[in-house]
């Protein structure tokens, strides 16, 4: 992966970013994440805690192989929402990255559609989702912090 994403212009690998060649003293500098950074898939991103392999810096190099809701409808929704959050934070500091913005829009569309389907089958995630429900089902089902043997349906 490092070779594949080596940037000949900056000489940077995918775990690197750019710094100013000259910069004011007495200031802290974090490298900017480059615009063409490689990305995990949604499921991988949620499991690893970041969309970006370049920022994936695990303690003792121990990493999650999966998450408890992998392969469930709620797990899929979480993965899409997590991608939205990651792209949201990335775009806050890279507002002119058109590719990332296009991806954000695409994922928002998928998440909205996924949420609508989820809600129709399993009940509301937000009070406003009750628009699609036949009864007041807000109180049904486990709350997110409750332990459920077969959760994440």
């Amino acid at each position, binding site marked *: 992966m490092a070779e594949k994403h080596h940037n000949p212009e900056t000489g940077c690998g995918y775990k690197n970013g750019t710094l100013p060649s000259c910069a004011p003293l007495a200031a802290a500098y*974090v490298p900017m994440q480059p615009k063409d950074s490689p990305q995990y898939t949604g499921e991988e991103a949620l499991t690893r805690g970041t969309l970006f392999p370049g920022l994936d810096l695990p303690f003792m190099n121990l990493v999650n192989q999966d998450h408890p809701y992998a392969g469930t409808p709620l797990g899929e929704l979480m993965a899409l929402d997590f991608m939205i959050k990651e792209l949201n934070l990335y775009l806050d*500091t890279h507002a002119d990255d058109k590719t990332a913005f296009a991806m954000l829009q695409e994922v928002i569309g998928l998440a909205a559609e996924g949420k609508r389907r989820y809600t129709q089958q399993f009940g509301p995630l937000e009070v406003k989702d009750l628009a699609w429900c036949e009864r007041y089902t807000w109180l049904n089902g486990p709350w*997110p912090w409750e*332990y459920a043997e077969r959760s994440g349906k």
Partner: protein
Amino acid sequence: MFVYEKKLQYPVKIARPNPALAKVIVTQFGGPDGELGASLRYLSQRYSMPYPELRGLLTDIGVEELGHFEMIGAILHQLTRNLSERQIKESGFDTYFVDHTAGVYPQFASGTPYTAATIAVKGDVITDLTEDMGAEQKARTTYDNILRLSDDPDVDNVIRFLREREVVHFQRFGEALRLTQEKLDQKNIYAINPSFDK
């Protein structure tokens, strides 16, 4: 305004209760570098941020931290379910139990109640962003230490996710500081406080 979504950011599913571990992890609920403090720090600092990208970032990360506060609450709730009196005494959870039973209370691992004394809102963009970068590192170290102390794979799974978020947030705050520096006088970036001086 805030709207509640009835799901966690990342699933918490802990098969085995473990009150001794809960007594340690509670520090990320209401401790000096915990998620409540993180959320309050960013959601309070944002008012004096002088640039739109900083107002946005502090809001967006502050909201995510509230979601992490909920995840830590879920971990504590699941680690302390169905406890027997014997488990409570033998695990050392008794000193927490006597005050809170199996309720989830924001406190340090040492028992000090949550205090805003561990966060800062200085009203200076460089100072506040530097504080935020330090805060993310402190939280990362705390998660490193929790991973050292935990022998439960279900807990480790969630903690690894939360720890990685600290790394990503550090990067974003660092980038925000870079964007800020570029807007300032390159001969003296400390000539004014752009959060206050117009």
